């Protein structure tokens, strides 16, 4: 079982680093706790849903902010609100923080600020997506090697 142990340790370290760097917070841990025999792919499902949602919302916001005449800040704000809700539900801390800043720019109707935040959100989202995909790959490897996913407190 050396491979399994190694993989498990890798998994734990990677998870810890994600938490340390602020990509994920406590909420993600809670989600992991919800995964059980009844819903073995719970976390993956939630994450995929999150990525779909994110892409759709980012596109919406980009389109709204590109309007040369009269940006509809209300629409942008609604999208940011949704994104914030989703990211806090999944535990994506950095994305959530950018959303908070994004919202204040929307309230101030600052187009430049909003565009900057949109860039940041897109950046954070792609980073997170990569990291989570790596994490899930590790999980798959552990399961394939016959081990069980360690619970990270």
């Amino acid at each position, binding site marked *: 079982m050396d491979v399994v142990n190694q993989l498990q340790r890798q998994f734990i370290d990677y998870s810890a680093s994600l938490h340390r760097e602020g990509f994920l917070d406590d909420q993600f841990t809670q989600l992991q706790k*919800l995964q059980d025999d*009844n819903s073995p792919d719970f976390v993956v499902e939630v994450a995929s849903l999150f990525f779909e949602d994110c892409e759709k919302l980012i596109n919406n916001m980009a389109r709204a902010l590109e309007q040369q005449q009269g940006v509809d800040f209300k629409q942008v704000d*609604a999208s940011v609100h949704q994104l*914030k809700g989703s990211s806090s539900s999944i535990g994506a801390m950095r994305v959530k923080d950018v959303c908070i800043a994004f919202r204040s720019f929307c309230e101030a109707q600052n187009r430049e600020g909003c565009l900057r935040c949109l860039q940041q959100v897109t950046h954070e989202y792609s980073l997170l997506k990569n990291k989570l995909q790596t994490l899930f790959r590790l999980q798959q490897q552990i399961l394939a090697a016959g081990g069980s996913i360690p619970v990270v407190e």
Partner: protein
Amino acid sequence: MESCNCIEPQWPPDDLLMKYQYISDFFIALAYFSIPLELIYFVKKSAVFPYRWVLVQFGAFIVLCGATHLINLWTFTVHSRTVASVMTTAKVLTAAVSCITALMLVHIIPDLLSVKTRELFLKNKAAELDREMGLIRTQEETGRHVRMLTHEIRSTLDRHTILKTTLVELGRTLALEECALWMPTRTGLELQLSYTLRQQNPVGYTVPIHHPVINQVFSSNRAVKISPNCPVARLRPAGKYMPGEVVAVRVPLLHLSNFHINDWPELSTKRYALMVLMLPSDSARQWHVHELELVEVVADQVAVALSHAAILEESMRARDLLMEQNVALDLARREAETAIRARNDFLAVMNHEMRTPMHAIIALSSLLQETELTPEQRLMVETILKSSNLLATLINDVLDLSRLEDGSLQLDLGTFNLYAVFREVLNLIKPIASVKKLHVSLTLAPDLPEYAIGDEKRLMQTILNIVGNAVKFSKEGSISITAFVAKLDTLRDSKAPEFLPVLSDNHFYLRVQVKDSGSGINPLDIPKLFTKFAQNQSTGTRNSGGSGLGLAICKRFVNLMEGHIWIESEGLGKGCTAILIVKLGMAERVNESKLPYMPKMPTNHGQTAFPGLKVLVMDENGVSRMVTKGLLLHLGCDVTMVGSSDECLRLVSHEHKVVFMDICVPGIDSYGITIRIHEKFTKRHERPLLVALTGNTDKVKKENCMRAGMDGLILKPVSLDKMRSVLTDLLEHRVFFEAI
């Protein structure tokens, strides 16, 4: 002789007599003819002559006489018979008329004479009337002067103007040489020269008031003539001339208190001023009666005017004083407000600033306690923990007290278990008591209701404080706690006169007595006990460790609960009894009523799963919907998911026990849904519990939720444990509002 028409015949020398006769006759005739002409002329001129026919008669008589004389002119020379007959006729007529006239004149002349006497009489009368007219005019003039003077005096409310005007006008009206006013001094023993007419600045010349002359003047309300040698009249530089007459009159100085509603001012006013008027010297003028009357009237008017002026001055002064006081009060109030605001700000800041480090210390110390420590280290950590807990309590106490003083503290009323409160107190105090080997007993009266409505936390704090004090100050012996419902007679014998218990149907008074056998308190110190920061220096043990705030806070809580607290002690060494009476509401039976969730009290995590519990989750956000679903599935619930309010209303049924709604999405009217669900399910037990899920909230939102009819509010993110305890509490108490 031949008659010729020439007027100037040649006269023989013995006709000289004849010539003279001739000339005289001629002139007589002329005169006789001109007299009636004159008469007619003048009578025509004058309108009034009653005796016209007399005039005619007289005229006729004179004309005839003249005619006679005229005809006589022709008789000097030889004349014809015609002339003679004409002459005779004329003479006869003349005789007749003159006789008649003579007879008439007998009647007329007396008449004429009487007219003359009447005329004389009328002339005398006219002279008399003229005299009287003159007198009346003088009086009217005087009256006019008085009115003018009065008008002048009364047209101003300034005292100095009044007096000055009086003197000036009097001086002018009466042509006085000098006019002076003497006012009584403050002591009332002297008269001081206050105003004069001619001397511009009267020096403070005083005269003692008890002078016979002055007394004489003061005793009568008339103007009295006084001697020019009197001290009050010696105002002019002594000269060689004869001083004019002097008159003095009193001017009553009226005070406000002299005017009663129905009476005129009493004449027993003691204060008078003296007005002295001097006629010019060397003028031989005398004081006339009307002048004296004028002076008296003026003196009265001046008195009234002065009192008005005095009243006005008084009221102006009072008003100025009030305005000053107002300004000062306003300033003081603003200062006080600023001070209070500053204090509140300070407290708010210190609240946070003090609590944060305290929190860190306590948290870290307790964590440290969990690790491996040597016994000495453990002792040190325990001491740190105890001290910091004490400090935290002190901070809370101070903040509580200041809020209490403001009156901004409000009781958190709720239904609670009274028996549980006492049991809790007992549990908390037992360890300490057993260490000190004190025996604690609790007696609850059988008629004490189990549930009551009041502020549980503060009631417990108060009782704990009192019991704690009892334990603290007793070295040995026993402590007994008794609680019962106070009856009216026991209420009345409480030691405070201002404590007025009012019994009503849904309230009762709880009386708690804590008796200890400890060191007791000197009865003289008892009033100081409830004042804050006042420590009891006379007790032997100084290690009380309290700040002196505890009892003060208790008293304020008890006051808020409309009760009373006091301590009785027979003296040092004889123990003491603390008695507490508070007003609590009667609670109904507990089945239906909502019990508020007390986050401090330990809850039982009874259930770890809720098999088959039908739950509806409404959330627009797909991700968070999934997360919530996952949570609930993990706990074994049967979850239905909806993404919009219409779906929610369509799918909700009485089988669902709980509905979780996300309310932080703008555009969803969660309150509207709540109301519609209430309408849909009229029976309480059929309706599902409505819980709001939200990512951020504040007190206002929470209140809105409660008001809309929601049964609960939870903050996202929700952990598994939190969801578990929330569901447990919800199903047990049917209400769960997370503390904001």
